[in-house]
């Protein structure tokens, strides 16, 4: 028998929605994800059997939905999540990717990782506790990483007698912390992940709530306009030169259009060289296109034979990014070795790579109380700081809030090759 949710979805109109969740051991995050997967019929029978067996072995009854999201052996043994885990489910309306991250401060770097590609953040608030330190932390990260939509799920409503006043009170508390952040779209949903109220199915216990349940909200969230369709940015990944008889003179610039739209015949400029040309063709394996839009992977050919290599950027003549060697950025430090004062690191920005140096630590953000600390200049793992950065050659940048692709970067330690920081450009 084919269930409603296992029904073959139509591919044509279905979009991909990337969700980030963060939570601590007790706030019911794993239960919520388990509930979403279970009620949308995305858990397979052999997975369910494995969970039932484990639940029984632990001396508990029924199905502990939280167990479904436990990944690595160390985590299963300790009952905690230590790394970003990705979950997948599909409904007839959308395909969903959940980046499931631990919520403890020690795992800020994982939350940042999960948030970097998300369209929407689910922030869980325990109805009994209201807005706490952890809520501020998660929300700040959602704001810092500019996740376009935030859904605040007030969970465990069953433990506060499904009380509407309690829900409204928490909503008000949350609006209080929003003033310190830049979150554009916030919604509130009262739920009980354990009982299933307002997760997939509408709650019968909270008839006072007129909004949609969580899944329906996720299925209908308008995300097409989240991606910047104005500022055309095409970082070149690699050059395609077939050197065959048929394509003797072919020279294509392969990359992903990170934002904006390009059409055949458009006047473009290659940066940093500044040479002008026109789009001769937009090629893909399947067809030559009249126009392309983000986030399509394409190959461009130009009318003129100009020197372009990996790390260069093709943009419109009348809409160019800033070319700078010094800028301010917020960074999250990801590595257990602290940042070296005036340390030199390799910076990866789009497909471009340069040397860089942290010239100044402006302030450190205390993400629990949302206050700046200008005294403490040491950057340690999980710290979020505003810094000044200098690069050996100009980068083609936009502000992160305008463009996630050309406003983001990572720092790599040349001594270890590890990714040590994630950065968001301010100006």
């Amino acid at each position: 028998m084919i269930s409603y949710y296992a029904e073959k979805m139509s591919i044509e109109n279905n979009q991909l929605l990337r969700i980030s969740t963060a939570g601590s051991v007790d706030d019911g995050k794993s239960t919520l994800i388990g509930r979403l997967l279970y009620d949308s019929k995305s858990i397979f029978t052999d997975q369910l059997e494995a969970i039932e067996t484990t639940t029984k072995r632990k001396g508990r009854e029924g199905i502990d939905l939280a167990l479904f999201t436990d990944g690595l052996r160390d985590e299963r043994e300790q009952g905690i999540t230590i790394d970003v885990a990705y979950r997948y489910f599909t409904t007839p309306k959308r395909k969903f990717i959940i980046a499931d991250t631990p919520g403890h401060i020690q795992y800020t770097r994982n939350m940042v990782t999960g948030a970097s590609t998300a369209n929407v953040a689910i922030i869980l608030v325990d109805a009994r506790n209201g807005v706490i330190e952890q809520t501020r932390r998660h929300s700040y990260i959602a704001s810092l990483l500019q996740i376009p939509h935030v859904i605040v799920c007030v969970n465990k409503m069953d433990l506060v007698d499904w009380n509407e006043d309690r829900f409204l009170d928490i909503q008000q508390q949350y609006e209080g912390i929003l003033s310190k952040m830049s979150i554009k779209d916030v919604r509130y949903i009262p739920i009980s992940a354990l009982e299933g109220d307002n997760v997939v199915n509408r709650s019968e216990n909270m008839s006072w709530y007129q909004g949609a349940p969580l899944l329906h909200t996720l299925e209908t969230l308008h995300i097409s306009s989240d991606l910047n369709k104005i500022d055309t940015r095409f970082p070149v990944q690699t050059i395609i030169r077939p050197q065959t008889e048929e394509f003797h003179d072919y020279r294509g610039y392969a990359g992903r259009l990170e934002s904006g739209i390009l059409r055949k015949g458009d006047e473009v400029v290659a940066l940093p060289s500044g040479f002008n040309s026109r789009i001769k063709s937009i090629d893909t394996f399947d067809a030559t296109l009249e126009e392309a839009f983000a986030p399509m992977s394409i190959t461009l050919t130009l009318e003129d034979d100009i020197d372009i290599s990996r790390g260069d950027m093709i943009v419109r003549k009348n809409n160019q990014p800033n070319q700078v060697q010094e800028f301010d950025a917020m960074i999250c430090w990801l590595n257990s070795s602290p940042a070296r004062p005036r340390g030199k690191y390799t910076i990866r920005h789009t497909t471009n790579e340069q040397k860089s140096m942290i010239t100044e630590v402006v302030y450190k953000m205390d993400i629990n109380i949302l206050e700046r600390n200008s005294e403490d200049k040491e950057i340690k793992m999980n710290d979020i700081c505003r810094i000044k950065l200098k690069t050996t050659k100009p980068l083609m940048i936009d502000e992160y809030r305008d463009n996630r692709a050309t406003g983001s970067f990572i720092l790599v330690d040349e001594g270890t090759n590890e990714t040590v920081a994630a950065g968001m450009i301010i100006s």
Partner: protein
Amino acid sequence: MSKYYLNYLGELESEAIFVLREVAAQFRNPVILFSGGKDSIVVTHLARKAFHPAKFPFALMHVDTGHNFPETMEFRDQLIQDLGANLIVGSVQEAIDKGRVVEEKGRNASRNVLQITALLDTIEGNQIDCAIGGGRRDEEKARAKERFFSHRDDFGQWDPKNQRPELWNLFNGKHFQGEHFRVFPISNWTEMDVWNYILKENIAIPSLYFAHERKVIWRNNSWIPVSEHLNMDERDSPVTKKIRFRTLGDITITGGIESEADTLEKIVEEVAAMRQTERGNRADDKRSESSMEDRKREGYF
């Protein structure tokens, strides 16, 4: 005005092509790990698309357990010929003959674990710095935490607790001599996505995926094909069934399911209605709750 968004399959394809182009740009000697299974076939197809109209800059590498489905080998050789690609073979039989590994004994013996040594030897011997695989995060819980760019130390080992953070689409493939990367372009695809894509793109796959009559025995809750490599005794009674395979691996441990799905359309329909994960028929994953994680730590695919 036309719509300016990609559907989910289009976005997954674009993401995979981006990842494959990053591999070409960041590594000196990358290969595609090719098993003849649908996932590595899809990765190979995506590689064709990513570098069109040029040939893709990767050799195909096959870790040959010696216990193959003949159909898989025919398919592999035909594809190599069609693409004009190079093939590198890592042979488990050779590793056994050289005494690098010892063959498992008994009724449930398999060469699955032995592949690790053959794989790592071949990577080292050919100075491969990146092996592109068809691994997907939805396959298994240890894989749910895998990165797109997954670092391996000079013993080929995966350290799940010390993985490089991966943000936005900034992939860091920097490595020292002797280390290598495993890259998984279709990390974010599910089994359903793979089948929908094969159907949409009309990609050729081995006949084993379609329902066919075959002599099989019932073992470990699935239909194991009878072959010269299978250890059988009086407890086994071979029967002929109409089956198909959901995954392809070593012929001694890859179980089939009873099915009437003999076209791509029917397979997509069947997979959509499935209530069991595809690896539910793989004896290698059933050895213990963390068997995949343990093998991955050692250097498995």
